[in-house]
């Protein structure tokens, strides 16, 4: 008996363990599938964009591993813990943002990095999830839709970190952080009238921002966007070369590793912000549609997760994170294809770079946490 029980235990335990793992571990497999597919796709594009540089590839693969691990652990935290910690995370992020302005490292003309000796850390990245968490926490603490006073406070919560980030200056990140916060408000059920009014207000303060808050190089970027041919060898060069790369790709592309614009170095920043142009040149419109399909799959899975979320906090956070992800895609492709001015926004999960990758995966971890910690009514 004991013997058989023992043997039975031995036989059954691994089985039960494996099944148990898939059941108990908090991973949203549909979302996971999309992310893995996108990551593999990204590696393939990066291989070409980096000029078949295995050094770059290795580093990106290591970052991907780190990011997946971070995502995994984030996903294991129950949403009510996330809700509880939201103000603290936000507060810490704000503290770092102030710190970075005082003692931050300067890179590429902007003060963005905090040096912790062992590693450098970009507090603005953290704000990409800290701000929506904070706004969601604040909004979820009272019944929705929110009152006008609470909306104003929420706007203040958003504006302070966005202002600090813009001051570094980092237009791309401040844009992403700001929209992450505003998306939370959108999902709170803010009246359309208020949303419309807010748009008008934004349009009104745009000139003020232009004249008083923008740096010369930022203004230059916008001007270049409006007319890149004005300065074809200077700041317009990026956009012109990028459009040439995309356009010359045609319907089917020039083939993997065969993009002349990218392989011959005409395309600047080809493994980071402009990696989409490399892809579009080598894989053509067909490839672009395929990539967009994967993105759409992830986005709609995210929207489903948001819609199924059980707490207000979870819903608001999930919705905001998904739309921020969309902003990444639209702003990056828009800028690379000349629809939007050049702001430093990477193509999510494809552009080379570890920091934004980890941030993105934390967001996916949050989504998974929200999705997998639901208490199902039907079992």
């Amino acid at each position, binding site marked *: 008996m004991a013997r058989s029980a023992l043997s039975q235990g031995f036989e059954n335990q691994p089985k039960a363990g494996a099944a148990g793992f898939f059941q108990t571990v908090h991973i949203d497999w549909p979302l996971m599938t999309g992310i893995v597919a996108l990551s593999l796709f990204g590696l393939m594009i990066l291989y070409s964009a980096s000029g078949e540089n295995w050094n770059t590839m290795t580093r990106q693969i290591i970052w991907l591993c780190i990011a997946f691990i971070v995502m995994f652990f984030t996903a294991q935290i129950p949403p009510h813990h996330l809700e509880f910690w939201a103000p603290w995370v936000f507060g810490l992020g704000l503290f770092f943002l102030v710190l970075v302005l005082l003692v931050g490292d300067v890179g590429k003309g902007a003060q963005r990095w905090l040096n912790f000796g062992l590693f450098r850390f970009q507090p603005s990245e953290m704000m990409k999830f800290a701000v929506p968490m904070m706004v969601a926490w604040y909004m979820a603490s009272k019944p*929705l839709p929110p*009152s006008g006073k609470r909306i104003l406070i929420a706007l203040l919560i958003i504006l302070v970190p966005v202002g600090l980030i813009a001051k570094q200056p980092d237009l791309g990140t401040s844009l992403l952080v700001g929209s992450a916060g505003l998306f939370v408000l959108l*999902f709170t059920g803010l009246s359309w009238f208020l949303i419309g009014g807010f748009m008008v207000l934004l349009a009104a303060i745009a000139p003020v921002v232009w004249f008083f808050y923008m740096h010369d190089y930022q203004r230059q970027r916008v001007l270049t966007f409006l007319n890149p041919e004005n300065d074809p060898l200077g700041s317009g060069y990026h956009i012109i070369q990028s*459009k040439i790369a995309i356009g010359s790709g*045609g319907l089917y592309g020039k083939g993997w590793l065969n993009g002349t*614009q990218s392989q*011959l*170095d005409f395309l600047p920043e080809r493994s980071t912000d402009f990696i989409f142009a490399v892809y*579009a040149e080598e894989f053509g419109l067909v490839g672009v549609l395929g990539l967009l399909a994967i993105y759409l799959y992830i986005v709609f899975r995210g929207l489903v997760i948001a819609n199924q979320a059980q707490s207000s906090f979870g819903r608001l956070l999930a919705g905001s994170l998904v739309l921020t992800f969309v902003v990444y895609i*639209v702003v990056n492709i828009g800028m690379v294809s000349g629809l939007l001015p050049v702001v430093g926004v990477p193509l999510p999960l494809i552009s080379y770079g570890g920091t934004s990758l980890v941030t993105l995966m934390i967001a996916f971890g949050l989504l998974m946490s929200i999705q997998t910690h639901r208490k199902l009514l039907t079992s």
Partner: protein
Amino acid sequence: MEHSHVKIRDHLRETRIFTGRVIFAGVGVVILITVIIARMAYLQIASHEHFTTLSQNNRVSIVPVAPTRGLIFDRNGEVLAQNLPSFSLELVPEKIDDVDATIEELKSIVALSDDDIKQFHKSRRHSRAFQSLPLRFRLDEAEVARFSVRQHQFPGVSIEARLMREYPHGALGVHALGYVGRINEAELKVLDVADYNGTSHIGKTGVEKFYEDVLHGSVGFKKIESNARGRILRVLEEERPIPGQNIFLSLDAHVQQVAEKALTDRRGAVVAIETKTGGVIALASMPGFDPNPFVNGIDQKSYRALASSLDRPLFNRAIKGRYPPGSTLKPFVGLAGLEYDIVTTGMKIPCRGWYQLSNDEHKYRDWKREGHGSLTLLGAIRESCDVYFYDLALNLGIDRIAQFNAQFGFGKTTGIDIYGETSGLLPSREWKRRAKHESWYPGETLITGIGQGFNVTSPIQLAVGTAILANYGLHFKPRLVYATQQSGQKDLQYLDPEIIGTVPVLDKANWDYMINSMKKVVHSNRGTARKIGHDAPYKIAGKTGTAQVFGIAQDAEYDQENLEDHLRDHALFIAFAPVESPEIAVAVIVENGESGGGVAAPIARKVLDAYLVNRNKKKHG
């Protein structure tokens, strides 16, 4: 307000609102993605061709390949101008952040003069930023090695091997050969830009300039693929340039050398012409200069030294020099006298040392104060009697003198195949009216008859005139080039000698007589050039001349001793040889040389020897 919101959560309503917003967001996402797809379709389908062209233009560029310049040989195949590989230091300004700082740094590796830098900046103004511009030419091996080691520190700077024109004999024949130099702005405006794409040098003077079209060849091109930094990755297509043709000069380097050596330390010119073809055997103008520094731009200091030298080394006396022919004109005037039946061979004219017009006090002097006594034309040529020719000229009249001499090419450019020759001046009634608005005076006919007065000839004109005399009237156009050769082929394409015209021979005996008279100049005891005749292994016909640089006042004595050097008479000598069957005609002018017989004739003798004697030695030895 506050009160109404503290009420209990309406979960159902919140969920409903949220779902509405999610649907709204989903629709928004679809719209945005649609916009992106539309944009992509616009770029990748509608504008595909446009961007494909731009991408091709980015990647593929057409680079001109300069043809190799043709070589120049002398008549014996001796190389006079060649192309040697030379290393130059070149900069692409576009790829250099701070050009001035880079140049400053380069100074520690290669020697850079202020002129090099100035020249570089000058060419920079006229070129595009991505073009490679030379900063220093002719780097030596040590400099090449030093730079190669540190090349990585100088992006945009490279060492280029180029073929550079080189003149192995230096100054030898420079006034005939000319030289090439960097193309300047003025030249850029007139030349065929397409054909000179990639060519940096062009013929500036001499044969190099005259035969530029032949020597240059045709440009080729390479279609190359390059990356954004302009690095050439591969050649997609290539059309090789057609190299320039080689040129063979009738110039004989040896004779040229002898001529130049004979003129050493003097100012003057020697022109020797092959009588049977018009081929120029020697064309010397001294002092000369080394053309090699000119190829890549001579430095200011050296140039100023050359340009401001009183000896005018840059001036091609052989074709541009304007000299009174003096007594070297007498054979032509004398022949005119015979042909026009003004004088006969037996007729004697007395010479008392001066000549006077019937209604004029002025005494026209003979160079020999005491006079020559009674002379035939032969004697007058042999001893260069002025009085005889005063009388002859007066009887001929200026019209016939001008008309006859014009047949020998005087007063016109000879048409030699280098640019810049003077037409000289053949005085005539008509000319004087046109140029000076004055009528002709009989006294002027007299001095015209002895080659003074308004007469101006260049050495090349004198040589051509002499050759016509030796040829019994046959007038060949003088020319330096007698053949061209396609690169890489053995056969020469000979250029046919060009006959400009013939002087009508009314009585061949007259010509025989004149030639014999000229022979007596050299080969008789009373000849003015007897010094060079007694030991000559062949017979020479010649005529000495001295040309006044400035007029001597009436009754004044020409005082050799006290005259400043540059006011002394020019010494001239014309000759051809062998008399029996002429092969070579020579004209020699030595500025301020004073004695045609004493100074100019020996130079001519050396040139004749070099051509006639040494050549035979070569043939038989």
